[in-house]
């Protein structure tokens, strides 16, 4: 219980820091960076090592009703094309995601995957280190969430599991609301290397609606660099949004109450990289192909939508 203050401290530091920096420039930054470094070390210590055995099917099963209610009533979630995912064997699910630190796409898709294939099928998700070291979110590990590191990802795929990655990471979820219908992985191609090394198919998972759960204004990249958050927490952004219940929400460290936007997720047919791009696929070519495919799907989903939030 003693650690519960860490995240709160981190969050309030985030808030104070941004105010100071927008108004007074660099005043007080040395004290601040010292405090931040301290928090960073605390957080580093809390990052759990990946232990795939921590996934607990009974725990997941018992949480499904609550997830089902949230997904069905709040987000009116709809997941299409789960039949495209191979029935067994390792697979890399590559998704775009949205909604700041409260990503509803993940909730809706995780629920759908677990009910469709059963909690018996091993299914892991990669998440940002900070997410897993947050007090109170430790139970995510029982869902099969592991810290985003190449070694963890490889281990999961080698064990024959399905692995869900969001290459866009914090960069993508905090994009401004007016870019809501854009797939933005920030050029990250590590996941392609991962699929090639493990020799598993990629299944693209495209979702829409998450960026309508609040009014996202800016990633605050310059602010994050100024505060050295990128070096200490692997945080490239210090997002600014207007969200419930805070009003102006800087950092989004404590999360927010998402608006009940309709979430639609479409699962595309699997791509066997070596069958499609030759024995030594060109990373740029694969990346461009995936981006085009996912963006076209997202455009189609966007065209279906009549109103923001309502869907």
């Amino acid at each position, binding site marked *: 219980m003693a650690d519960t203050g860490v995240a709160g401290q981190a969050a309030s530091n985030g808030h104070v820091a941004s105010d100071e920096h927008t108004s007074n420039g660099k005043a007080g930054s040395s004290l601040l960076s010292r405090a931040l470094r301290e928090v960073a070390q605390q957080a580093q210590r809390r990052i759990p090592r990946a232990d795939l055995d921590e996934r607990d099917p*009974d725990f997941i*099963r*018992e*949480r*499904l*009703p*609550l997830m*089902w*209610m949230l*997904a*069905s*009533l709040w*987000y*009116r*979630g*709809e*997941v299409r094309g*789960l039949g495209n995912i191979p029935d067994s064997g390792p697979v890399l699910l590559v998704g775009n995601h949205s909604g700041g630190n409260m990503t509803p796409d993940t909730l*809706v898709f995780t*629920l*759908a995957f677990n*009910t*469709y294939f*059963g909690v*018996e099928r091993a299914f892991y998700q990669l998440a940002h280190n900070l997410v897993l070291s947050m007090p109170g979110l430790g139970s995510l590990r029982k869902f099969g969430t592991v810290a985003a590191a190449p070694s963890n990802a490889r281990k999961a795929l080698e064990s024959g599991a399905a692995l869900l990655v969001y290459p866009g990471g914090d960069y993508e979820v905090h994009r401004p609301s007016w870019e809501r219908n854009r797939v933005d992985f920030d050029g990250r191609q590590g996941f392609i290397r991962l699929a090639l090394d493990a020799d598993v198919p990629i299944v693209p998972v495209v979702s829409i609606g998450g960026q309508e759960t609040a009014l996202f204004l800016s990633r605050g990249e310059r602010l994050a660099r100024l505060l050295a958050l990128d070096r200490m927490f692997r945080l490239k952004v210090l997002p600014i949004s207007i969200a419930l219940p805070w009003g102006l929400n800087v950092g989004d460290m404590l999360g927010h109450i998402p608006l009940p936007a309709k979430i639609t997720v479409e699962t595309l047919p699997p791509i066997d990289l070596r069958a499609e791009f030759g024995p030594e696929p060109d990373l740029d070519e694969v990346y461009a192909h995936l981006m085009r495919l996912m963006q076209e799907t997202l455009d189609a989903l966007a065209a279906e939508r009549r109103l923001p939030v309502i869907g």
Partner: protein
Amino acid sequence: MRASARTVVSAPIETVWSIVSDPERALSFMSGVTRWEVESDEPTGLGARYRMLLRVGSAEVGGLIEIVEWDAPRDLAWNSVTGVDQRGRWRLRPAPGGRTQAEIRLAYGVAGSGIAGWLAERLAGPAVSGHLKTTVRQLARLVEHERTRDLAAQRRAARAG
């Protein structure tokens, strides 16, 4: 939670049984069912296993089920092996005039899921009973339509003969 729906089908009990007991036909009349695949060596009979899914809200729920009662042409019951806890039953009884009363029952839940589970079961209630009502309606339509065609074929054959 329990849900059920019943109807009277204008066809003999054997005809209705041949449809409800055939795993190949489940998708053609069971409302909300998105998957009904045979998972056992024997496609029918006691101990046959199917992987089934039913769309409820934002998820397709179900899992592996096993036939635990096979009393042709009257009773067919199944239990869940994995996935959502469920117990289902087709109950067919002869009705006057060569017709058949068909009833489907489904009890479902997630044991151990506490208050959220209790609430979710109730919230899912209308969707589940809606699916069951549509199922019996579609069953009656399917059976009666096939029966009309069979009778017509017999008359055609008699005229030709």
